[in-house]
């Protein structure tokens, strides 16, 4: 199909006004006129919207009418419309790679203020494209098959929903969760706003369904250690931490817990935010999925500092009896899985309230974080749902401080989006449980969402007090007799315009959401990007909200930014749909800008092999030549630049193409 030599070059040049986006700064007809004088150009046109149907139709007709065999369009970024114009060129009967696009909008019109200079630049860029396109060769798009299995990282509500959606569509899913049970933060919540559904009641059916789904392979107490490969064909290494229990044998009877040598729970219970205690052998919460206990080697007597010592009399093993599900010799294992696409749903971590010392968290026992209150009001929590403070009393007055670690340039600048609503929910629940006087201290009430504003109205009706003002400090220093022994909140009621001191029994800090502390490691693991806040970056904030800059890797839930449960579930569904599009199609089309080796010139020096970021180059020992796997090559050009003998060539970026482009930019008419 290479008709470069056999035919004369007939180039059609089109310049787009893009409404006034380009035309306001670039004199389009003048550019078209200047380019029309160049060798090989048989046709130039300027048109208002090249990307419109009539614009594309123009290209198709001209190819037939003027026997064009090369097309150049000067318009916006190739990211947006290269595909459109390649399609138009193909529809006109040409190979789509006989087309080249010039970006005179983002690279020119939008960044310049002088029309004459911008026009000159547009001419230079177009001239370069004209010279380059003459050297273009016909190329073919290659297809790479996609592995049908999917990996979901993170077993919170986002991960569970995405995994369930994909599994229900008939695809195999690996669901990897770091903790001993799936469920994530939602499992810790008591109720959900604004409907006050019990969080466990709506989550646990999904959890157990995910746990028993034939298409879902649950990997709890596991972490992703390594990811290799490329879109459609990823090889992921999963580190399975030893829980010292045979998962397939354990029935969840919990006899071992009852018979542990520790008669009383003694160790910090992570699930209850440290408000309760657990034993070294434990199950995080009653509805944990899988219903399998775990042994914590840091606290178990049979281990000392994590090393197996066989010091304990092992009453748990005796209690387990016939089943013999306890195995103290378990080791960490690395398991490899092959998947076509990956969904990252690693979630968030709550802001550490101790970072704002003036609110006294960690200093005054009766200052709580919101997540602690969720456990405190929960029937399966450490106090069986009774709101009893650390000093053993029930609070008569409670202050809820909003925006702790949100909207604050000293900690986190962003609004965490959910705190206003969950503070309202907690105010309602605390009032219901204790009948206490409740004050909310807010900067702005942010309740956009279906039924959210109505919920706010309901709380106002219930007699919960709302004071607009960010709290200055929480102190136990009493200025008057009624403040003795209480926590005093000093705040300006900004609407009334005076400063108030209000004594409380209990203070609740509505902590914001922030990226997980190891988000940067996860980002590197999966070749993603992070925004300035540290949340994973989506490909486009509006039009590609679940895609990342790595093909085949999608994000869902709070790892992308703070959001509530409805949004998380919606996003998880969107990510699952994107994955199904990829997996169900079965193949991906690959841009043919890959590199290849000129065998007769390769001297087998191997300098390219370690440089390739996609491990696409291997060495053929028998022929002593390097070999590039086209499916793995992303067209980055590193090997091309590094090859000492110049024997690596890259499609669409061949030397004569690049040199003619440079000549074009530098040439003067």
């Amino acid at each position: 199909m290479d008709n470069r030599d056999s035919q004369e070059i007939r180039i059609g040049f089109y310049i787009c006004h893009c409404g006034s986006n380009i035309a306001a700064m670039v004199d389009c007809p003048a550019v078209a006129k200047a380019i029309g004088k160049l060798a090989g150009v048989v046709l130039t046109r300027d048109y208002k919207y090249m990307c419109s149907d009539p614009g594309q139709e123009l290209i198709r007709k001209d190819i037939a009418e003027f026997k064009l065999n090369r097309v150049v369009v000067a318009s916006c970024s190739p990211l947006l419309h290269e595909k459109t114009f390649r399609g138009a060129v193909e529809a006109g009967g040409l190979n789509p790679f006989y087309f080249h696009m010039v970006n005179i909008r983002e690279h020119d019109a939008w960044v310049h203020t002088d029309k004459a200079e911008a026009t000159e630049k547009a001419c230079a860029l177009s001239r370069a494209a004209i010279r380059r396109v003459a050297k273009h060769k016909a190329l073919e798009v290659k297809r790479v098959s996609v592995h049908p299995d999917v990996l979901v990282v993170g077993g919170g509500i986002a991960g569970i929903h995405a995994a369930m959606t994909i599994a229900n569509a008939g695809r195999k899913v690996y669901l990897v969760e770091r903790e001993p049970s799936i469920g994530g933060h939602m499992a810790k919540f008591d109720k959900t706003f604004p409907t006050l559904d019990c969080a466990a009641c709506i989550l646990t059916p999904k959890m157990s369904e995910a746990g028993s789904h034939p298409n879902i392979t649950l990997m709890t107490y596991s972490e992703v250690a390594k990811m290799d490969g490329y879109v459609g064909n990823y090889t992921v290494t999963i580190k399975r931490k030893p829980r010292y229990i045979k998962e397939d044998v354990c029935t969840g009877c919990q006899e071992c817990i009852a018979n542990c040598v520790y008669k009383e729970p003694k160790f910090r219970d992570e699930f209850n935010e440290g408000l309760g205690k657990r034993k070294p052998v434990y199950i995080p919460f009653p509805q944990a999925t899988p219903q399998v206990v775990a042994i914590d080697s840091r606290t178990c007597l049979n281990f000392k500092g994590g090393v197996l010592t066989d010091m304990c009399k092992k009453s748990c093993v005796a209690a387990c009896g016939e089943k013999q599900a306890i195995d103290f010799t378990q080791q960490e294992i690395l398991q490899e899985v092959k998947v076509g696409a990956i969904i990252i749903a690693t979630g968030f971590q709550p802001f550490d309230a101790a970072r704002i010392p003036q609110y006294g968290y960690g200093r005054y026992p009766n200052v709580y974080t919101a997540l602690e209150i969720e456990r405190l009001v929960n029937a399966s929590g450490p106090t069986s749902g009774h709101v009893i403070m650390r000093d053993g009393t029930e609070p008569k007055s409670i202050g809820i401080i909003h925006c702790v670690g949100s909207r604050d340039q000293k900690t986190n600048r962003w609004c965490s989006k959910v705190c206003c609503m969950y503070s309202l929910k907690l105010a309602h629940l605390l009032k219901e449980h204790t009948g206490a006087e409740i004050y909310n201290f807010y900067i702005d009430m942010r309740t956009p969402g279906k039924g959210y504003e109505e919920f706010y109205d309901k709380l106002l009706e219930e007699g919960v007090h709302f004071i607009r003002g960010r709290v200055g400090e929480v102190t136990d220093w009493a200025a008057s007799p009624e403040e003795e022994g209480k926590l005093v909140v000093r705040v300006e009621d900004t609407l009334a315009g005076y400063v108030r001191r209000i004594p409380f029994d209990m203070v609740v800090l509505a902590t914001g959401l922030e990226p997980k502390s190891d988000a940067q490691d996860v980002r590197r693991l999966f070749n993603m990007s992070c925004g300035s806040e540290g949340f994973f970056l989506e490909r486009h904030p509006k039009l590609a909200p679940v895609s990342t800059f790595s093909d085949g890797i999608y994000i869902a839930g709070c790892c992308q930014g703070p959001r509530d449960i409805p949004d998380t579930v919606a996003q998880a569904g969107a990510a699952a749909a994107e994955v199904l599009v990829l997996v169900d199609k079965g193949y991906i089309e690959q841009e043919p800008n890959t590199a290849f080796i000129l065998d007769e010139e390769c001297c087998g020096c191997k300098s390219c092999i370690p440089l390739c970021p996609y491990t696409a180059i291997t060495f053929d020992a028998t022929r002593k030549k390097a070999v590039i796997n086209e499916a793995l090559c992303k067209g980055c050009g590193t090997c091309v630049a590094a090859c000492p003998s110049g024997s690596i060539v890259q499609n669409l970026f061949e030397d004569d193409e690049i040199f003619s482009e440079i000549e074009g930019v530098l040439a003067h008419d």
Partner: protein
Amino acid sequence: MKLKKRIIQYEAERVVGFADEIRNVPGCEELRSCIQCGTCSGVCPLSTYMDYSPRQIIGMVQSGFKDKALRSHTIWLCASCYSCAVECPRKIRITDIMYELKQRAIQERIYPRRFPIPILAQEFNKMAQTHGRVTENVLAAIMFLKSTWWTAFGMWRLGLGLMRRGRFPLHLESIKRKDELNRMLKTLDKVTIDMLHDERGKGEPARGGGR
């Protein structure tokens, strides 16, 4: 009963551009980013005595109610403990803004009458400039005489105690080469805010200047 105080503010009372004027002073650049959360008033140890809370003063400056802001007691009650500047979630240096307002109030002589603090500030400055030293009891005496002189009688016991301990010198303390001090102060006076701006402009772009 006759209503004395009106709450409404008319557009004619606004000084358009006052906020920008303040914002151009080094240290006051972040003025615009205030979200009126009230943290400054919440942490201010003196906010309980102020006629307007620090948050309200920032609001007045932002809207250009210059006269109201400069006439307030608040700016004079600010003890520059910097709690507000430390706690402000927008990193606004409220104390620096208070200082700027105090300076302007003195320049325009619209501070509250018979209020000791602005008088103290001016007399302190005057004494330090002419003598190079401040004699505290004389300064206090001048402050009382120019403001609420009758309250000084209530402090006779303190004065007596100080005198007994030799802490009540009746002569003005002074440094030796006052002409050199004068030369230094004169040079300083020539340095204007604009010069400081130019100096900053050479190094790094002024904060907030590009908005």
